[in-house]
C-alpha cells in the first residue's frame, strides 16, 4: 500500500496519545477531523471542519475562551452586551469577533487575569476619522462601545498572540465605535 487510505470514523478516538502514537479520527457526531496530539483523552485539536470552513460561534452571553477556541470567529449577539475573556497567552492563539447585534451595553474583550496589561492595538474607522490606538503593551480591554451611534453591526476585531502579548486590529464604522484601553 502506497500510504494511508482512510481515517477511522466514530464518536470518540480509538485510544489515547502515547509517546509514539497520536489518535486521529473523524468525529461521527460532527464530521470534524480531530487529533489528540499529546496527553490524555480530552485535549482534542480540530484539524479540519466538516464543511472546510473555519469554526465559528454565535455568543449571546459572557464567555471565557480557551486555547481550543483559537481560530474561531465569534459573532457578538446580545444587545445588552457582555464580556469575553481571552485565554492564558500562548503562541499562535488567534480570534475574530464581529458585531451581529449592535450593543446597548458594551461588548468587552478582556485579557485573562486583568489588569494584566499585555495588549496593544489599532482601531481603523470607516468614516476616516482619528480612532483609538494603544502602541505599547499597556492595554487590557477591547470595548465595542454602546453609546448611541457608536459600535454597530459589522464592527469587528482580530486578535493574535505571539506567546507574550496580544495584538489587536479593530475595524468600525464610526471612529468612537471601538476602544482599546488599559
Amino acid at each position, binding site marked *: 500500500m502506497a*500510504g494511508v487510505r482512510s481515517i477511522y470514523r466514530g464518536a470518540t478516538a480509538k485510544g489515547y496519545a502515547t509517546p509514539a502514537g497520536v489518535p486521529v479520527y473523524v468525529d461521527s457526531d460532527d464530521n470534524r477531523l480531530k487529533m489528540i496530539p499529546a496527553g490524555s483523552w480530552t485535549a482534542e485539536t480540530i484539524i479540519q471542519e466538516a464543511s472546510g470552513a473555519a469554526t465559528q460561534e454565535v455568543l449571546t452571553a459572557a464567555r471565557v475562551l480557551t486555547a481550543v477556541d483559537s481560530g474561531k470567529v465569534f459573532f457578538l449577539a446580545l444587545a445588552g452586551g457582555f464580556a469575553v475573556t481571552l485565554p492564558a497567552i500562548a503562541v499562535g492563539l488567534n480570534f475574530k469577533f464581529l458585531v451581529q447585534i449592535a450593543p446597548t451595553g458594551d461588548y468587552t474583550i478582556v485579557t485573562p487575569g486583568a489588569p494584566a496589561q499585555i495588549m496593544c492595538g489599532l482601531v481603523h474607522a470607516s468614516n476616516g476619522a482619528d480612532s483609538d490606538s494603544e502602541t505599547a503593551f499597556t492595554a487590557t480591554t477591547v470595548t465595542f462601545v454602546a453609546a448611541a451611534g457608536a459600535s454597530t453591526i459589522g464592527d469587528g476585531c482580530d486578535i493574535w498572540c505571539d506567546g507574550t502579548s496580544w495584538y489587536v486590529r479593530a475595524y468600525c464604522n464610526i471612529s468612537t465605535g471601538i476602544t482599546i484601553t488599559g
Partner: protein
Amino acid sequence: MAGVRSFYRGVTPLGASHTAAVPIYVDSDNSRLKMIPAGSGTAETVIQEASGAASQSILTAAATLVAQDSGKTFYLALAGGFTVALPAPAVGLRYRFFVQIAPTTAYIITATNLAGLVFSSTGGDASSITAFTGVDIRFVANTALIGDSADFWSDGTNWYCWAFCDADAGITVN
C-alpha cells in the same frame, strides 16, 4: 479496514517523501502535526499547531521566506530593523507581519509585482500603490509603532498587501 487510528509520533518522521507517499507525523518535541510534501525530509510544513492555533515565528534578523512559511504570522522584533524577502508569487501564498519592537531602522518586506493599501488609525491620507508595480513595503523608522501590521496574499502572479498603522506615515508602499 476500519481506517487509520493514529499518527506516528516522534522526533522526526519515518523516512522521506517520494513520488507516491508523504510522511505525516506529530512531532513529539512540540506536538505539532507536520508533513514533508516533497523532497529530502527537511522541508517540513506545519499542518496544525498543537493548540489548534495558526503557526507563527518571531523574527530578529533578515529572512527569506519560502512557500512552506505560507500562513504564518511573523513578529518583527529588532529595533535596528531588517529585510524580509517574500518568495515569488504563487497561488495561495499568504503572510502576516506585526511590529513587536518599534524600529529605529526600517523593517522592509520585499515582493515583486506588489500592489498595496495602507490604512492609518489616525484617519489621514496614507500610502498606496494601485497597480502591480511595487517592490516593497516599509515599516518606517521612528514612525512605525508596536501593533502596526501588514497582510500579503498572492494570486499566483502578483502580491496584494493591506497594511495597518497608527501614524499616517508609519508604513509606506514603494
